[in-house]
């Protein structure tokens, strides 16, 4: 009964979404206020209907209702409750429901925080979001219904993939989807601007916080995924350039470009047409990412083609959304106008360079991700594009962007002078160069890449310091504290996010340069040494988990004779699927991780073991968190609060949403 209620709620939701997608947009076109006023109530009821559907599916999982096909396929009666609930987004159908649910959450948020927008704008935004949800609801109801019954019911479920039975995996998809779907707001703003033909600085100011919040979620989502891969896949890598990862990285690159382009539109009224195109791009890549990961096309083009209905729907939907919005763009963009002019060397010019580099990088990732699919689909042979491709294309494209990142915040709008910039930045440059040359030698190894990484990281930090110093020197107010307080939060946010990048670069550089890895056979009582650390293997014992049995090893790690850590890696066998899983043990530190994972049992209680010493690896994810915090700080700026001044709430939506999610 409950699953049928969920199914029925989805059908009702589709009807409401159709109304929301058609009436307000039509009303805005003919200037009919009563049609436009349908938008907000429709969006709110859509939210409640999808919430009911989501709740019904959650209930089916909680109650172990194996008469629902999706529940039987992705959970098991031994699976603990929190993983059963996380199993909602453990596979295709449920992920689509989560996606739609999050879309309605964003819609609901738009209805709450948009009363200051002109009515036509607001109804167009909600209308476009309604149309997007029509596509997803239709997809679920036609070919991927999460409530499909399994008759007769299964006695036992097939279980959630053990890889996904992990706290990181519980959080990663919702965060990622908050980011993906959040770009739908920017997309809807862009289409609304195209439909209305007016795109001014106020428009950019409205859509900026939404875009930034979505970007923060996406950043955290990607970082969580990377962290999960690091400790759960058991082999110590943090980024594999796997198509699944690329699928989330491409919208991030486009979204990052969008944030910067929006800044120009907001502050200077420039880049208008480009901003709109980037908004379309970011959301299109989000859609593409969702489908790449969830449609099975990556595992096998041919498996994808064996279920042609799903595949055709996806391709048609992508074609309608991307093609439709690009057609609208081609038709209406000339009316939007180009915005003010600027010199080659100016903050606009530098931001344009940043945009071109980011978009080119995204395009190169897209090419590497889709190329094997096309080759396979056309029967031109099976190939794989490995990490070396991405490393050798991505790094040279992003390096100049990182370098320009130090200069951009210090350049004047409209026209900057190169000699002046050189004078202001010479100390920062000198410090970076010297550090880059000396530090690797102090650390014991000099390679060009190591030097380059340190150069970029120090450069970003140093220019941030110069930037703050100049703000203090030229700020209003008497004391240094007053001047510091006068610096807008958006500016602090930007600097913080940039420093996040620098922290990230430090992490990547140090891990690539100094990590040590050892595969070794260890008898009980034997020791192995990597770096300054000695690992002693004290044998394994059997432990029982809720739905697995495991061999748990004990490793004593010491440094200079003193104990540094005791690590307990596990080899688990999940009883439902009989699947073996490596559970690595990690001792986390500010400047290094110690990482042990069990390989295979050999004779006489010996095991093959993999040991890692990973310096600064946590800075990679720490940097991402700092970037996201920078975004949150920027969104809390007064200038956005002012634009919400007619609201009863004084806290901007971004901070509120973010706070709720982080709590």
């Amino acid at each position, binding site marked *: 009964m409950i699953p049928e209620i969920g199914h029925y709620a989805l059908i009702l939701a589709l009807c409401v979404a159709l109304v929301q997608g058609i009436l307000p947009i039509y009303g805005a076109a003919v200037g009919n206020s009563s049609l436009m006023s349908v938008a907000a109530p429709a969006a709110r009821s859509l939210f409640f209907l999808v919430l009911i559907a989501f709740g019904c599916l959650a209930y089916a999982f909680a109650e172990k209702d194996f008469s629902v096909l999706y529940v039987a396929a992705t959970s098991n009666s031994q699976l603990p409750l929190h993983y059963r609930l996380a199993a909602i987004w453990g596979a295709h159908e449920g992920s689509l429901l989560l996606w739609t649910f999050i879309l309605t959450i964003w819609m609901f948020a738009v209805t709450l925080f948009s009363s200051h927008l002109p009515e036509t704008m607001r109804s167009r935004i909600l209308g476009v979001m309604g149309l997007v949800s029509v596509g997803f609801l239709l997809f679920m109801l036609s070919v991927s219904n999460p409530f499909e019954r399994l008759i007769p019911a299964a006695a036992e479920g097939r279980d959630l993939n053990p890889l996904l039975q992990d706290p990181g995996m519980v959080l990663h998809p919702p965060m990622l989807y908050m980011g993906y779907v959040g770009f739908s707001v920017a997309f809807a703003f862009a289409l609304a601007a195209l439909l209305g033909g007016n795109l001014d600085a106020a428009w950019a100011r409205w859509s900026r916080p939404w875009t930034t919040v979505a970007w923060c979620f996406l950043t955290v989502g990607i970082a969580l995924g990377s962290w999960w891969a690091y400790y759960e896949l*058991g082999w110590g890598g943090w980024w594999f350039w796997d198509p699944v990862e690329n699928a989330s990285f491409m919208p991030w690159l486009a979204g990052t470009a969008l944030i910067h382009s929006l800044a120009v539109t907001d502050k200077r009224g420039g880049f208008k047409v480009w901003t709109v195109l980037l908004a379309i791009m970011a959301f299109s890549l989000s859609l593409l990412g969702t489908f790449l990961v969830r449609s*099975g096309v990556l*595992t*096998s083009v*041919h*498996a994808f083609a064996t279920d042609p209905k799903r595949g055709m729907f996806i391709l048609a939907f992508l074609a309608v959304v991307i093609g439709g919005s690009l057609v609208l763009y081609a038709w209406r963009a000339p009316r939007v106008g180009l915005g003010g*002019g600027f*010199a*080659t060397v100016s903050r606009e*010019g530098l931001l*344009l*360079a940043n945009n*071109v*580099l980011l978009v*080119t*990088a995204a*395009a*190169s990732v897209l*090419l*590497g991700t889709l*190329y094997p699919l096309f080759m396979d689909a056309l029967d031109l*042979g*099976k*190939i*794989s*594009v*490995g990490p*070396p*491709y*991405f490393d*050798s*294309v991505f790094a*040279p*494209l992003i390096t100049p962007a990182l370098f320009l990142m130090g200069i951009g915040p210090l350049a004047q709008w409209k026209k900057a002078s190169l000699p002046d910039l050189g004078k202001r930045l010479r100390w920062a440059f000198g410090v970076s160069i010297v550090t880059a040359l000396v530090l690797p030698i102090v650390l014991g190894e000099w390679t060009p890449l190591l030097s380059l990484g340190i150069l970029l990281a120090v450069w970003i930090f140093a220019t941030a310091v110069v930037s703050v110093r100049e703000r203090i020197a030229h700020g209003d107010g008497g004391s240094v504290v007053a001047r510091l307080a006068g610096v807008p939060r958006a500016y602090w946010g930007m600097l913080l996010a940039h420093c996040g990048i620098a922290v990230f670069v430090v992490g990547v550089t140090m891990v690539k340069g100094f990590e040590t890895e050892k*595969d*070794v*056979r260890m008898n009980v009582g034997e020791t192995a040494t990597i770096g300054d650390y000695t690992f002693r293997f004290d044998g394994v014992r059997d432990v029982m988990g809720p739905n697995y049995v495991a061999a748990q090893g004990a490793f004593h790690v010491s440094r200079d004779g003193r104990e540094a850590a005791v690590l307990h890696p596990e080899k688990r066998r999940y009883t439902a699927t009989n*699947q*073996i*899983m*490596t559970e690595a043990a990690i001792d986390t530190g500010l400047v290094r991780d110690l990482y042990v994972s069990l*390989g*295979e049992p*050999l004779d006489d209680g*010996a095991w*093959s073991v*993999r040991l890692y010493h990973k310096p600064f690896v946590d800075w990679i994810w720490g940097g991402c968190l700092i970037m996201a915090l920078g975004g949150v700080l920027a969104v809390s700026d007064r200038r956005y609060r002012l634009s919400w001044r007619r609201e009863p709430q004084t806290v901007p939506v971004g901070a509120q949403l973010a706070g709720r999610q982080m709590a």
Partner: protein
Amino acid sequence: MTPRQKRFAFVGLGLVVVGVATWLVMGALKSNLSLFHTPTEVANGEVPKGRPFRIGGMVEDGSLKRESDGLTVHFVVTDTAKSVPVTYKGILPDLFKEGKGTVAQGQLGSDGTFVASEVLAKHDENYMPPEAAEAMAKAKASGEQRSDAMVAQP
């Protein structure tokens, strides 16, 4: 600069970036693409020498041997028609099992042994890497043709 010259400067700059990117992509694709080959193709010598590629198929039952260091392993990958011996030093992935599908990345040694640098554990719900499944399906299809031919000959 006049606005016209400025526009040309921007367009030129954009073209330079795109050009550099294209050059990087072409270079990287040329040296980093790894093709997939079936054990039959390897046995028939239809594979590039001195270039890494991937093979896939089933790990032959009883073929897994471990050297005394506990890390170097030898096994045989088959697509049921032909087999290729594989050597790998390192820890095998959790899903690696005799009688199951596998995909390995590496180079063909001079003695005809495939020296793997990486053994992949990717799989779908049926615990068979798609490449491996395809290799076996291919071998099966061509195997049937061969037996037809044998029947036709006296």
